[in-house]
Each structure stands twice: as C-alpha cells, then as structure tokens.
C-alpha cells in the first residue's frame, strides 16, 4: 500500500514539474527575435506587463536608421546612470552625420560611424567596441540571459535586426549601507557589518585579506529567485575536500527560492535532525575573515547580511572575535565563562528539579529549609512550576524580539512585575524558581552565537523532563546521550566535537582556552591540512635590564 502511494506521489510530482516547465514563456533557451518590437513585446508579456519594467525606444545613427530599445527595471537600475552614460552616449555623443558610409574597420577615424549596410557582426562589434562606453558590457543571445541581467538591475540594449543584444551594467538599487551589526556586538573590534548586497560583502572581506589567493566563486541557486551565492575561501589554506564538499552540496540544492542564508544552511548541513547548529553564521566580516584564515569556507548569499562559515565545530560557537582582540588571559576566562554558562543554561532548572524532588539530602539543611518555606503553598510540583516559568520566559523573550520597539518597555514591565513579583507574592511560584529561571535566561544569552542558545533552549526542556523522572540519574543519562549525539555529528566531514573528541592536543590552544598569539603557531589541524603554519611571532621578551 505504502509503496503504491509513494510511487503515485512521485509520479504526480514529476508531472507537475513538467507542466510547470511548459507554462514558462518564453522558453529559456530560445534566442531573441530578429524584429526589435517582437522581442520587446515578448519580454513585456513574460513580465506580465509589470509596471516597473521600462522600455525606452529610440533611434541611433545617420538618418536615425537604427531602431534601438533600452530595457531596464525601474528601481533596480540606476536611473541617472542610464541617463548620463547610456542614453547620452547613444543619442547625443554619436555624431549622426558620420554614422553611415565610413568604413567600419577604419580605426583612425576620429568619430564613430555605423553602417547599416555593413556586415551584421561588424556593426554589432562596432557598437560594442566604440559606442557603448561602459565598463561592464556583455552580449546576450537568449531570453534566459536577458532576464538574468535585466532582473539583476542591468540595462538591456537591443538593436533592430539582430538576435543579440547588450547587457550594460547599471545596477543601482537601494540598499542599506554598511552598518554596525545588530546581532553580535563587541566592545572592542571593528564595528562594520555585512549588508544585504553580495558585492559589498565580498568587498568587506577583500579589504581585510589582500591576498590573491582569496578566491570567490559564484553560483546561482534558486529556480525562481536566481540568487547569487558566493563561495569564498583562501586557496592553499583551505581544506580542498571541504571546498569540494561545499560545491557538491550546493550543486545538489534544488529549490525555487533562496531568501536568506538559512535556506542554504538547512539544505546543505550534514545532519538535519539535530538541535545543534553545524554551520556557523555571522554578520561580522572580521569573524568571517578569521574563519577563512583558519582554512574554513564562507558561503555568502545575496540579500542577507548573514554569511555562513563551514565547517563549524562545537567550540566555534563559544568563540567570539573579541577573544582575539583582548589579551589572551581575559579571552580565556571569558571563554571558560561561556562554557560554564552553557551548562548553567542547560542544566540549572533540571538540577533544581532533581535536587528538590529527588536528592534533598544534597542540599544543606539551612538552604533546604528556606526552599521548603518558599514552596509552602505553591500548588504545583517543582517540575510543573519550572515548566510554567520556563515557558513564560520563552513567551516573553519571543514577544520581546518580535515586538515593535515602542512596546518593548511594556513587555519588560509586565514580565518583571506582573509575572515575576506578583506571581511570587500570590504564591503561584516560589521565588527560588524565579531565581533559577532568571539565571538560566541570562546564562543562555551569554553565548556569542544565537543558534547555540536556541539549541540549549530546546534541550533544556528535555533535561527538565528527565530530571523530573529520574533525578540526577536522568540528567546524567541525558548528558551521555547528548554527548554521544554530539560526537556522532560531523560538520562537512569534520567531527563536531573536535578537538575534544577526538582529542587533538595541538588544537587545544584555541579551543577551551585562547593561548597568546605567539603560541598559536599552527592552524587547527583537522580543518586545515595543507598550510599549517600560521605565524612565527617570537614570544615577547623585554630587553634585559642588566648591562
């Protein structure tokens, strides 16, 4: 039965695919029409008479013999650029008298001349070489490429009688400039963040790594969106296998839309069913550069400031770029604090439940008495109480992020006063539980990356349930299962828990701790296998005061 059903389903899907292809007019591979107006007409009709599609018909050459049309999308193309540098060259600067009769191949001629009677290719070439005075010009032959350029913001110049046209680079859409990233802020460190424009983003990286080996490869993914996706890495430093793997996986992606790098992330990650992120994302160019220099691969997607970095290991989610801008001892301490907070965020409510309902003997008497006093009159078992408070907190947090800024204050007042204080005073929850939940909440925000904090939030509820069932035994078994799962994960072939499991002694210098730079001689071993040496700064030695 099941087989039959899935078979039918597949068939149906295939059918659907086919019919979708048929409806698409004009078909991608067809060449342009010879007659200019036909081409313009079919472009216009395929765009469904969209209002932002602009066609400017004009004539060029002696006696205005050549009919031409300039096509562009309003809003995507830079209007003043088109005005000043395309239209003006074509219509004004071209000396009309000389356009006919003169030999095309005569290069010594001071002015441009175009002959209708000349060979098609030559005339076209002339146009390309002389008249269109732009840096970014490419020929187009088919509707597919026409749409590709047109919808990317370029202007299309079509000439009557030719099945070819020009795409002139005139991208100039509105975009947010380079601003301070909102997600990962630092006290010390660069304040620029990626923006939505792919080109800006690559430039931000280029500006930092001035090395010819920094390679950026482009791919277009998304059947409908045709989104530019750039793979960026430093050749010679990067692990070739990872690059190959990334390319392969990107090639396999068959999706109609890529609106954010999250789409890519979900379609190329190793294991889908895991609460842990196996791909790193960030808005910070410096973080990406550091990753590239470690030998990792960045994947940039047009339209989002969030750039992906692979392979991403567990330890990477606890590293902030600021660790490297501060002194190493400070960086180390802060990093250890983050690991502590990871466990606090994960286990505090669970431990509270386990201790107060299973292992009261572990709590010192005085503390136990005060806990017991607080819990007098609380109608719920500790587990339910914790669950209630945690869910309330999650609701508050979610409301806080999605709310308009102006309402934010109201939320915090409601959260702090109504849910916190009033609930305690009304005896619905104990104040110890409020402390536990607050500690958990604050700890989960210590994580420098947001997605690790999310996975902690998911797992926390699991641990709470285990604690409610089996106490600390449950928590420990949960931890074992979690670590087993973590060790079984891989990020682009690299074991997720490296360098702890498998234990790589030389990589420990930049995992749990951060050693001073003069000690970080080598790049991480597992990620990078070719160009290991990172630096050779000698450890600083003060000049001897002895004479």
């Amino acid at each position, binding site marked *: 039965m099941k087989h039959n059903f899935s078979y039918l389903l597949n068939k149906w899907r295939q059918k659907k695919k086919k019919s979708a292809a048929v409806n698409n007019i004009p078909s991608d591979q067809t060449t342009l029409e010879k007659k200019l107006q036909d081409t313009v007409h079919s472009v216009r009709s395929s765009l469904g008479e969209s209002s932002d599609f602009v066609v400017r018909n004009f004539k060029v050459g002696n006696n205005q013999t050549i009919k031409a049309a300039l096509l562009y999308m309003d809003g995507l193309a830079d209007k003043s650029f088109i005005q000043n540098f395309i239209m003006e060259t074509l219509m004004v600067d071209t000396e009309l008298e000389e356009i006919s009769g003169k030999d095309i191949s005569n290069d010594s001629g001071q002015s441009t001349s175009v002959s209708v009677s000349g060979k098609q290719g030559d005339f076209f070439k002339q146009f390309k070489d002389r008249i269109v005075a732009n840096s970014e010009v490419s020929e187009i032959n088919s509707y597919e490429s026409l749409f590709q350029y047109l919808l990317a913001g370029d202007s299309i110049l079509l000439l009557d009688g030719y099945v070819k046209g020009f795409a002139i680079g005139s991208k100039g859409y509105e975009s947010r400039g380079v601003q301070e990233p909102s997600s990962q802020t630092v006290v010390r460190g660069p304040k620029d963040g990626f923006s939505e424009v792919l080109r800006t983003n690559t430039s931000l990286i280029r500006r930092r790594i001035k090395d010819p080996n920094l390679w950026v490869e482009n791919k277009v993914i998304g059947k409908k969106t045709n989104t530019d996706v750039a793979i960026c890495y430093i050749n010679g430093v990067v692990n070739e296998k990872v690059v190959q793997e990334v390319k392969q996986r990107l090639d396999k992606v068959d999706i109609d839309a890529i609106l954010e790098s999250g789409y890519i992330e979900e379609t190329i990650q190793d294991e889908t069913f895991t609460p842990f992120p196996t791909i790193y994302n960030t808005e910070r160019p410096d973080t990406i550069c550091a990753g590239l220099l470690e030998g990792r691969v960045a994947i940039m997607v047009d339209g989002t400031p969030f750039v992906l970095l692979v392979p991403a290991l567990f330890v990477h989610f606890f590293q902030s770029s600021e660790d490297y801008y501060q002194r190493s001892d400070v960086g180390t301490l802060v990093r250890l604090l983050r690991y502590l907070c990871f466990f606090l965020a994960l286990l505090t409510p669970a431990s509270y439940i386990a201790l107060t309902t*299973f292992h009261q*003997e572990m709590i010192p008497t005085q503390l136990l008495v005060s806990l017991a006093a607080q819990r007098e009159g609380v109608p719920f078992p500790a587990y339910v109480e914790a669950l209630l408070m945690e869910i309330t907190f999650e609701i508050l947090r979610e409301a806080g992020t999605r709310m308009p800024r102006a309402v934010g204050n109201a939320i915090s007042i409601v959260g702090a006063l109504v849910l916190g204080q009033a609930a305690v005073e009304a005896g619905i929850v104990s104040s110890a539980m409020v402390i536990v939940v607050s500690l958990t909440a604050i700890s989960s925000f210590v994580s420098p990356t947001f997605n690790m904090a999310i996975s902690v939030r998911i797992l926390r509820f699991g641990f709470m*349930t285990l604690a409610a069932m*089996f106490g600390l035994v449950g928590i420990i078994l949960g931890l074992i299962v979690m670590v087993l799962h973590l060790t079984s994960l891989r990020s682009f072939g690299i074991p997720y828990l490296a360098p702890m499991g498998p234990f790589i002694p030389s990589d420990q210098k930049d995992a749990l701790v951060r050693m001073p730079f003069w000690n970080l001689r080598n790049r991480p071993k597992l990620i990078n296998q070719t160009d290991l040496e990172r630096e050779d700064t000698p450890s600083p030695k003060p000049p001897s005061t002895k004479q």
Partner: protein
Amino acid sequence: MVKKLKIVCVIIIFILFLTACWDANELTDLALATALAIDQEDDQIKLTVQVINPDEIAGNNFTNRTAVSTYSSTGETVFEALRKLTTIAPRKVYLSHIHVIVIGEALAEAGIARNLDFISRDHEMRADFHLAIARGHTAAEAINILTPLEKISAEKLASSIESSQQAWAKTKKVSLDVLLSSISSKGKEAVLTGVDIIGDPNQGNKLDNVEAVHSPTFVKVDTVGVFKNDQLVGWLSGDDSKGLNYVINEVESTVEETACEEGDDKKVVAEVIKSNTKMEGKFKNDTPTVAIDIKTEANIGDVECGIDITDPSNFEKIEKQLGKEIEQLIKDSIDQAKELESDIFGFGEVISRSNYKRWKEIEGRWSDVFVQQLQTEVNVDVTLRRTGTVTQSFQKEIEEKKKKDEQ
C-alpha cells in the same frame, strides 16, 4: 537511523514517564527531621522525631507557632516506630538531614546495638550526625527543649557538641561509624556525649522558654557516657572527659589552670592551642604498659596573681605545673575508666599494634587485664608560647600597692 533511535528513546521514556516519578517527593510533602530521640518505654521503643516547620524559620510571615515540632510513636523496633509515625505525622518523615540522634539513658543502659542497625542500614541516613545520650531525662525531653538563637534546637545541640569539643574539650563528638567500630572492636570501648537538661523540661518545650531573656530551661553538654560493649555503664565528669580527649588526641583547644603558688587559690590560666598525643604499648615484665606522651602548646590567657611571668624561670615553673595538672587529669580519667571497667581509650588496640602476639594471648580477658594489670606512663610536656596582648600583669602593682597600704 540514529534519528529514529532517538525517537524510540523518547517514546519509551515518555511511556515510562506516565507511570514514573516513583522516588520524587515534593519539598512540600516532606517533613524534614532534624533530630531523633530513641527511648525505652516498658518493653517498647519510643521514637520521637523533631521536624522543622520551614515557614516559621524562613517564611515571610511568622506566627506564634514553634519552629520545630516533635512526633512520637512506639513500636517493637526503631523501624516499626518510624513507620508508625506516618499515622501521626502529616508528611513523610525525611531522615537525611538529621543532625543529632539522642538515646535515652534507660535504653543505653540496656544496650544500644540492636537499635543501631536500622540507622546504619537505612539509605536516607547519612553518616554525619552526632549521637548523644540524654542524662537523667528521657531523650524525647532533650529534643523537646526550645532554644533561643537557634530556631532548630537540634542544630543547637549539634553545634554545641561540636564547639564544646573544639573549644572546651569536655565532650566527645561521636559519629555513627566511630561508635560502631568502637563497639565492635576488641581493644576499645565506646563513649557518647551526654546531654543534660537544666531546668524544668516541661517548661522547656513551650514558646515562653525562648521568649525570656534568660531561658529558664536549656540543654547542656559536658559529660561523656562510658560504654562497655553496647551498654552504658557510667559517666565521666567534664574533667575526666577532657583527660580522655587528651589521651585519644582529640583536644583542639581547651583551658588549663594552675595555682600561682602551691596552695594558693589564685590561678594562672593557659589556653591550650595545640596538643599532640603519642601512645606506645609495650610489655614491662609481662605487664602491659602504655606510654602516653603528650606535647601541648599553650598561651597564657589569664593571670590572677602578681607572679612575674616575664621571668623565664617562672615561665618554666608554670609550664611544669600545667603539665602536672594535665597529667593528673589523665590519671583521674584512667582511674575512672578502670572503675567502670571500660577501656575507652583504646589501649587494647595500642598494645595489639605494638605486640601482636602477646595481644592475642590476653585478648580474651582484656577487660580484666585493663582493670587489674595495665600500667600507664603519662608524660606531659607543656610549652607556653605567648602571653596574650600584655606581658606583665597589673596584679603585681596592685599587690605592691596593697602591701604599701598595709605598711
């Protein structure tokens, strides 16, 4: 594959969860016991449990209720009595936070071994509580007394046992494992702290007791009960207990005094800050002998007379006198133990350690040997270190002034 397995785990765990939480006890369902009292009543065991009323101790609004309450029940055994308590106590009695177990004098005289098994067997019991004997009263009365300052009276009892051992050395804190191993050891007998009630016990369990500035009824710990096997055979006075502590090297700090002059009633008092005992067993002409070598360090804490302590010879004299005092304490203590026919010092173990073969010969009749034959050589060496914040006492000037006045 792995994902599926995870789902299996989750589902099974949730199936279990439907019937789980066997061992979960909400704090509000527990009565935290802080003290147990075991008494003999006719042929039965009377068990009294002191439980905390948490709201009274850490709650927001205090009422007139007491911070602790006690429940008693009787049964053939401790275990049975404890389970019978469930008929009286509103909540499950939770034993992990017990600080003190007080045993009634009558029961102790009859033998405590049979009641201790439950205590060492039950998983809720931890080994960190103190054991004591109620002297002259029932154990229940001892844990019923309300104490000022410490709302949980059991905690007061535990802390006074501890602090009096630490600073006064006239009691002996005994934990369960020490008690059990001394009861079962062939060359050592057990001791337990005694708890006295000063005042009227019926007065002591009312809230009035703690509402007065001076509580009329209170508990006091300064004696030590001596056991032979598992039966209480007598009591050591405070000074004798101190001697015991000197011998078994449990003195952390105490106070020793000696007369300024022979026969003078004015004293020089020294604070012992460190004491170290070495015992060595040997056979002197077939007589089992234990040499007790004590090295004590002390500071002068109080000088009542005009003795010139800046004079090194006087200093030495005081050292010697103090040594003699301690020696006397120890000898009295040993005499007392011999009178009670109980080797509480573990001399038997000392001898077995030094001469195992000979020990095997006398092991069977050790109790008699201890009383009749055992010789002890006590050697106390006191070293005075400091004199407190002053050197010479002003007493001397006063005395001189007095003399002048007389003249």
